């Protein structure tokens, strides 16, 4: 790379808008500022969605109706899911991507910085609209996050606001993923070939392609709901010749890849952390890339396992059952590689590593219950029970959320320039791990015993496990306050070195801690880059 090119490169990214006050955040085009805003937004949403979970679990602590009207309970389950999926988990990963992808590939910023600003600021508007439905006549949407017609069409005044906010979330996600793809394809350091990219970058590239393919599908589905409700069409209305099952097919064509959108970046985070604290290179980097690509491909051809009970030809049932089971193979490759990375490594157990280890163990439990659900004859029994709730919460909480926590602890010293309080971090980890299992493990038994999901009351034989789950949920919710305490005290620790962790590797650790506002204004030199890649 010649000096002239490096200078032009730098000059192009010099202006990131105002540097002080509220305008810095409103008009920022700096990937670090936007990453920080995404992460703070997702944490706020995590607590709002968590508060809704507390309402749900308080109501379910004992049989009978305690605190809320059943309609409101249904609103809580619907809003909890929408907020956690689109407001907490996805923006958290986009925040990590914004912060870390340019640092990891040696780029000065994201390729489309203005669009980056826009894609973030759409989100508070979208969730402002969604949350405002709680105050509307008829209440917030209560038909489930899957928005199945005809039930969802019975939503009151909130319906068009729900559709509009989902469209906005989709636009934000699509713009975010366009930025990720364009950045990774065009802005890598000169010597960084695709297969030399860190796993977090790889998993995000694959995730971004998934998002590009499936978020428009969700947008199409909700557009059709909107026209069915207000413009006299009958896409999904049986009375007008439409087909409500078609909505389920379209929704799950989006919905299943969405699951991988929420877990692939988690794989990436864990694949960065385990080698660092094992002081070894990631075992089988290339096979991890191929496994993630395989998972992404398979995620497009398994959607109907979510709807085995709607009735479909036997060949369809068999295809979707076996295709789903096939996902266990590349997932198994990943878990094997993480374990092989740790094998005979000089392991230490700092908070990011603890969260990553819990991820490997507990995500695997969620994976196994997913395999059980993939067995069509058994799914008829499990369908719409608490077993499903247990399964996807194991995948999303000790899976995605733990990976986000691991990533936050891992990169926090690089972001702030200070070491966080390790004791508080470990306390947060152990409280989270104990309570997450206390919350979700009993739900497997409830589901196997036949307790249906999305109900505010239940038969008395389900009391014990529900009470345990509710105690666990409240404990888990409270233990997340420890994370806030860690963040509030983040600048009271010792100064972080540039490398932060003894075993860390990659370009992001070659810049100072805290990472300066402008990094890699001159693309990193090949020699340094090569050392870092290894």
């Amino acid at each position, binding site marked *: 790379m010649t000096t002239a*090119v490096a200078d*032009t*490169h730098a000059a*192009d990214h010099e202006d990131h808008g105002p540097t002080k006050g509220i305008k810095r955040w409103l008009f920022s085009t700096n990937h670090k500022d936007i990453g920080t805003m995404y992460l703070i937004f997702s944490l706020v949403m995590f607590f709002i969605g968590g508060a809704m979970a507390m309402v749900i679990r308080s109501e379910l602590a004992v049989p009978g109706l305690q605190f809320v009207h059943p309609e409101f309970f249904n609103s809580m389950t619907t809003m909890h899911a929408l907020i956690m999926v689109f407001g907490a988990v996805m923006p958290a990963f986009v925040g990590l991507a914004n912060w870390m992808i340019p640092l990891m590939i040696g780029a000065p910023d994201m*390729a*489309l910085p203005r669009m980056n600003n826009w894609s973030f600021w759409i989100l508070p508007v979208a969730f402002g609209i969604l949350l405002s439905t709680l105050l509307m006549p008829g209440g917030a949407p209560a038909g489930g996050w899957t928005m199945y017609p005809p039930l969802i069409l019975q939503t009151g005044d909130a319906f068009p606001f729900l559709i509009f906010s989902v469209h906005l979330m989709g636009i934000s996600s*699509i713009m975010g*993923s*366009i930025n990720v*793809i*364009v950045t990774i*394809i*065009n*802005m890598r350091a000169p010597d960084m070939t695709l297969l030399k990219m860190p796993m977090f970058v790889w998993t995000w590239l694959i995730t971004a392609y998934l998002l*590009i*393919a*499936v*978020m*428009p*599908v969700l*947008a*199409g*589905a909700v*557009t*059709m709901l909107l026209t069915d409700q207000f413009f006299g*069409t*009958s*896409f999904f209305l049986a009375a*007008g*010749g*439409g*087909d409500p099952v*078609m909505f389920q097919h*379209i929704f799950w*064509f989006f919905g299943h890849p969405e699951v991988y959108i929420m877990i692939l970046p988690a794989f990436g985070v864990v694949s960065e952390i385990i080698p660092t604290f094992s002081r070894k290179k990631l075992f089988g980097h290339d096979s991890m890339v191929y496994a993630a690509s395989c998972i992404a491909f398979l995620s497009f051809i398994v959607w109907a396992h979510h709807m085995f009970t709607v009735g479909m030809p036997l060949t369809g049932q068999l295809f979707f059952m076996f295709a789903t089971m096939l996902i266990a193979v590349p997932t198994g490759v990943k878990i094997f590689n993480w374990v092989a990375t740790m094998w005979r490594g000089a392991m230490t157990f700092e908070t990011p590593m603890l969260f990553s280890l819990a991820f490997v163990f507990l995500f695997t439990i969620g994976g196994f219950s997913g395999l059980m659900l993939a067995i069509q004859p058994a799914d008829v029994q499990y369908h719409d029970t608490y077993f499903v709730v247990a399964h996807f919460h194991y995948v999303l909480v000790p899976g995605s959320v733990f990976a986000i926590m691991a990533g936050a602890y891992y990169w926090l010293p690089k972001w702030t320039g200070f070491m966080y309080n390790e004791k508080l971090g470990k306390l947060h980890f152990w409280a989270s791990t104990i309570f997450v299992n206390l919350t979700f493990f009993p739900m497997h038994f409830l589901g196997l015993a036949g307790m249906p999901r999305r109900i505010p009351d239940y038969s008395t034989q389900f009391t014990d496990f529900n009470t345990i789950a509710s105690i666990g949920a409240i404990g888990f919710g409270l233990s997340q306050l420890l994370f806030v305490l860690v963040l509030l005290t983040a600048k009271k620790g010792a100064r972080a070195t540039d490398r932060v962790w003894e075993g860390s590797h990659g370009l992001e650790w070659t810049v100072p801690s805290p990472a300066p506002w402008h990094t890699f204004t001159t693309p990193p030199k090949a020699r340094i880059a090569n050392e870092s890649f290894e």
Partner: protein
Amino acid sequence: MDEQERKKNIRRTTMIVVAIAVAFYVGFIMMGVLRA
């Protein structure tokens, strides 16, 4: 790669990705239209 070429590549990649997104959006609505 010079800066002009990089910008051209960024524009090209962006247009390709946007086209994929629009195709999926319109395609799935058209599927609904054709079935209805």
